[in-house]
Each structure stands twice: as C-alpha cells, then as structure tokens.
C-alpha cells in the first residue's frame, strides 16, 4: 500500500527522522495560508510547492493543462518580495496545479489528477544523498542501500555506477548495528556533526521500517544542510500488504482516489484483480495460472484486459462479482474463463458462470476451459445452460478461440 509524501514525512517525523516543515493543502486558500507561518517559523523566505500523487518523477513531470508548470516548484519570490510575493506566487501555482493532471515517467500518458499540495519550507542544501530500506529476496533480509548520488533514480545509479551503491544487511535478530550505520555514514562522506546526525538518521529509519512493516522506504534525496542536519527532503513509503492488519493507523492513510476503482471493488470480494490495456477479459483460479493465461493470450496474438485470480475457494457470489468487474470494462471484446479445478470444483465455477451470465448479460463472446475436479459435471452445466458459450479443449485452444472470436 502506498501513501503520499506528506503522510510518509509525518510518520517519519513522529519517529525521530528529520524532515522539513510543511503543510498539506487541498484548496488554493489553504496553500496560500500555509506560506506566511512557514516562512516566519523557519526564517527561510523560500518555500516549495509539491504535488501529492502516488507516483514518482514529479519534479520533471508536467501538467497536461499547464505544460509550463512542473510537479514540484521552488518559490523564490519571497527572497526579494517577502511573504506577500511568496503568497502571490503560491496562489498562481496552486490554482494551476490543484485539479490538474500531472504526467510523469511513472504515471503513464494519462497522468494523475493532483488533489493535494504539500507546501514545504525551503532547505539550504549542502549535499544530496540517497538511502532506502528494502527486502533483499536473495538473503531474505532487509538491507539499507545508500549512495552519494542523491536525486538520481537508484536504478540508473545501479546500472551506470554500481560501485557508488553501499549496502548493509540488517540481521532481524539484531537490527542495524552501530558500526554498520557508521560505515554507511562514512561511505556517504559524512563528517563531524553530519556523521553523528547521519548515524542517528539511519538507526531511526531502520527502526521505523521494522515498526511500520514497510516494504520500501526510500529517501531521495537525503540531504545534508549547510548546518550539518541530515534530513529527508523527499520521502516515499509503501507498506507490506500482509502486515496491514496490524497497522490500522497506516490503513487510515489510504487514499482510495489514487487507486483503480475496479481493483478496489475486486478487493472487497476477495478477488485479486489488476486492470490492463487489452481486450480479452480473463477469469482464472490461481495467480500463476492467471498470469500464464495472460501470457498465452499474448502468445496467440491477443491482449489481456486484466489479471484476475478468483482464488482457490471462490463461491458463486465471487464469480458473479468477477464477471461484473470484467464486463464493466468497455475495452473488453471477449472473455476467457480458464479453470483448473483442484479444491475449487469445476461444477461450482460452471454454476457461477451461468448465473453471472443470466444476471449480467453477455454481449461479448465467452470461451470456457475447464479441467480438473468434476470437469464433466461442469461441462454438462455449461452445455445445458443454453448459453452461447464456446468450450475449449485446453488453454492454448481456448486462447486461440477467444482471440479469434473477439476480432
């Protein structure tokens, strides 16, 4: 689960991780009102106006409606003109940004609507660094990854200058050890106060990651200010889905407007659904088989419209819900139901499909492939239903048939 930058920074700040002061705003008036107090309390006439969306690359992103405005804007007007000048500029920016669509490398062409801004104090930066905490699957442990190349995407650093990436493995039995934090700080070139602050920062970050069950905490850039403070200038946090049950405070931060509506509905019904761009709707049991079904549709020349795993024990209601979600997508030109019945019996699936078609209606071709437990009874139910359903002998046969029919 993802959250916004301002939310991540609040969680960090609560856990002793230094972050700039800032105020979240959902209206132009709130944005403008934030400026004066921020400048007065920090003594810095510079403020930054940052779009809050669940996607990276905001700084280089541009608004569809205002191609001259970026996703993150540093307001320097206060340097010469004081608070009134800063407020005037923030008013201009907020008016353009709120409600507009920000396109970044991570949002895709359609972009994301900006509903919130974060108005933050300006920081006198001496150095920009990078740090993150994430799971290393090869060792089954969390690692702290750090680099002197702050502000650059870590994937690019890894590709071009891998020697600039520092890593320390966190033993879950001990947590981040002091010498590991010191080595990282030294590797980042931190000295004196900055080194001491850096070690404290890294310990707090590692502890927050464990406490909150994050699957990623990424600070890029991590900055050292001219007075030696080590601070998270940006902050990205995402949380491990399986552990959310024990973090109601984190779940409360969920911004459903950032998530796909169909994916949210699917979640309510216990279905695992991901919307894709193609035309063939898929309904499958099992995640691996669901992925493989997308692959085989692709292989025979079609494009899947979704990933949908109904799970190992779906009942009729879930099948009906799954059908509704698939058919609600106007791009869908055909549906492929691919079931290998194990614990989930083919006759249950068949009954669900028949019921769903009767309830929802069927305006596109439907191919059903059933195999496994009670397969004959399942096929009989489909045949007896009188519905216009095409049977498939195996997965490939089914994929070929649905792609053909959907043309």
């Amino acid at each position, binding site marked *: 689960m993802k959250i916004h930058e301002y939310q991540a920074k609040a969680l960090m700040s609560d856990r002793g991780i230094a972050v700039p002061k800032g105020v979240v705003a959902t209206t132009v008036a709130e944005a403008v009102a934030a400026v004066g107090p921020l400048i007065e309390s920090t003594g810095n006439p510079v403020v930054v106006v940052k779009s809050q969306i669940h996607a990276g690359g905001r700084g280089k992103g541009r608004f569809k409606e205002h191609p001259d405005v970026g996703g993150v804007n540093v307001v320097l007007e206060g340097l010469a003109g004081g608070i009134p000048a800063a407020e005037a500029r923030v008013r201009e920016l907020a008016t353009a940004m709120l409600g507009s669509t920000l396109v970044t490398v991570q949002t895709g062409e359609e972009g994301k609507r900006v509903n919130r801004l974060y108005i933050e104090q300006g920081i006198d930066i001496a150095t920009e660094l990078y740090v993150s905490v994430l*799971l290393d*699957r*090869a060792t*089954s*442990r*969390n690692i702290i990854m750090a680099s002197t190349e702050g502000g650059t995407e*870590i*994937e690019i650093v*890894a590709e071009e200058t891998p020697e600039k990436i520092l890593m320390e493995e966190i*033993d*879950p*039995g001990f947590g981040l050890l002091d010498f590991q934090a010191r080595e990282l700080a030294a590797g980042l070139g931190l000295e004196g106060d900055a080194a001491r602050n850096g070690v404290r920062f890294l310990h707090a970050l590692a502890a927050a990651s*464990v406490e909150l*069950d994050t*699957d990623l905490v990424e600070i890029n850039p991590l900055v050292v200010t001219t007075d030696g403070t080590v601070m998270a200038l940006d902050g990205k946090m995402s949380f*491990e*889905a*399986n*552990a959310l*049950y*024990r973090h109601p405070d984190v779940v409360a931060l969920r911004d459903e407007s950032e998530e796909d509506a169909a994916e949210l509905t699917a979640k309510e019904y216990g279905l*695992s659904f*991901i919307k*894709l761009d193609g035309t063939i709707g898929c309904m*499958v*049991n*099992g*995640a*691996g*088989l*669901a*992925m*493989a*079904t*997308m*692959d*085989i*549709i*692709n*292989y025979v020349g079609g494009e*899947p419209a979704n*990933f949908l*795993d109904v799970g*190992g024990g779906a009942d009729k209601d879930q099948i009906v819900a799954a059908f509704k979600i698939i058919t609600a997508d106007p791009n869908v030109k055909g549906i492929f139901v691919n079931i*290998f*019945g*194990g*614990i989930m019996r083919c006759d249950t699936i068949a009954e669900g499909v028949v019921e769903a078609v009767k309830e929802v209606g069927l305006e596109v071709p439907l191919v059903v492939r059933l*195999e*496994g*437990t009670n397969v004959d009874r399942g096929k009989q139910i489909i045949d007896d239903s009188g519905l216009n359903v095409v049977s498939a002998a*195996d*997965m*490939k*046969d089914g994929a070929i048939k649905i792609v053909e029919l959907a043309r």
Partner: protein
Amino acid sequence: MSVLVNKDTRVLVQGLGKTGRFHTDKAIAYGTNMVGAVHPSRAGEIEVFTGETDHSGVEGRPDSYDVRVPIFRDVAEAAKATGANATVVYVPPPFAADAIMEAAAAGIELIIAITEGIPVADMVVAKRYLQDKDVRLVGPNCPGVITPRQCKIGIMPGYIHTPGRVGVVSRSGTLTYEAVHQLTLNGLGQTTAIGIGGDPVNGTNFVDCLSLFNDDPATEGVIMIGEIGGTAEEEAAAWITQYMTKPVAGFIAGTSAPPGKRMGHAGAIISGGKGTADAKIAALEAAGVTVAATPTDMGSAMLEALSA
C-alpha cells in the same frame, strides 16, 4: 524413490480450522499418515475423520476410513508422543510464522507451510530462526508436497498425480496442477511434486529442490515452474549449469505482466526492471533448460528434454 515425503512420513497438522480440517481429511482419504494435531485449547481431545477412501492415493486400502487423530497442546508434546517427522501448517497468517518456529524448535525435520498472507517481516524473522537448525521449511503460500500413491501433504488434488519419472518444483499452485496433469497425460508421471510457494521469503528454493531431485535415483528429469519477481530462477540456472546431471524443462509465467504490479502472489512483481520473465527465460535457456513457450506445452517440453 522420491524426495521429502514417502509412505513412511508421519505428519502433524498445526491449525485445525475449517481449511486445516478439510485438507487433513483429504490427506487421510489419500492415505497420508496423519499422526497428530496441535491445538492448544483442545489438547487431549480426539479429532475423528471418516469417509470414503480416495483410491488414487495409497494402494491396498479398504473403501472407507475411520481415523482418530489425537490433539496436543504444542508441537514438542505432539512430536514426542507420535514420532512425527513432518508437519503441515494451516495456522492463520498472524500466528503462522510462530507456528513454523515452534515446529522447528521441536525438531520436526520437514515443515510445510500452506498459509497464504503471512507478513513478510514475520517470515524474515522465522527464516533467521531456522537458519542454524537442521530443518527444512517448504512454503509458505504453497500447495504443499506430494509423492503420488505414498503421501500427500497440502491442498493439491491428489487424483491428477501419477507415480513416474519427473520431479516437479513450482512457485505456483494451479500451474503445478497444470504441469502435473500434462505429465500424467503423456505418461511421464511424477516422483514428487513440490510447491515452493509464491511469497518473496520462502524456506525452500528451486536450487534446494533441483539438488534433491538430482540425487534421487528415481527422478529422471525435472520440470521447474517459475514466475516474475526475484532472482530464484536465475540462481537455479547458474546451479543447473554447474551441477545438474539430469534434463530440466521449465516454464516462466508473467511474460505479459506489467512492471510494478503485484500479480496475485506477493512475490510476483517486476521492480526496478529486475525479475522479468524474459531475463529468467534467457538464463534458463543458457543453462540448457527446455523452456515451454506456453503453459500448454509444459508436458511436451519435458518429453523433449528427456529425449534430447
């Protein structure tokens, strides 16, 4: 021959909720030696399982069964009383990692964790706890392990399996069934089928299973079914190049998966350009693995690998 489980495996069940009870019953119907259950609040009780024998399982049994499984307070007590050497974990996610560690502390050699949805951080701790112990964890979030006609531990449908020549190892449940079904249809059958699970932190990986199958005289070839996310398949490819003496076929799910999206399994995600199906397929092919182009071709890819 087989790996991990056989007719002599004595199995405990941890977690006798709806799912645990249902699958314990199916395992008994198949002929698995279920010797005890662990349920703290029901210690001392007996759980009764009766029904019709699943004749696709262990041979030579009457048409019905009536099995009484004693319930124990904890794994240590259960192990001591029953001589169990394996356990299957159906405990709900918040308590499952603890159940795994408890089984390890009790010295159970083989722990098969079926539970889906265990917090990753809990598994990081559990794996650390297990690292110095002489136990093997399979899973979590897996269908389990089956040696056809000998022992079924987990949630897979028993009847699709048939004794034979091929070892099966997979990160996915239904895709394993698909492969097993194809191997049964083309007459190859299976020595043992192992589901290693779809989570990012798991106990047994591809390399462990390839090594077991490599040393099993009855296994003539191995089919491994991987998917996007992580580098377990690439590590397997490196191991195959160096050590594998038997033909290997494979399939990788997720060639059409978009980056940054978790495809159902917690571990199935392409992140930062890493863990793509294409990279895994290339690594396996470079290691001489016959990779099936589609999931329908898994059985024929195994036949091809065996006859090469």
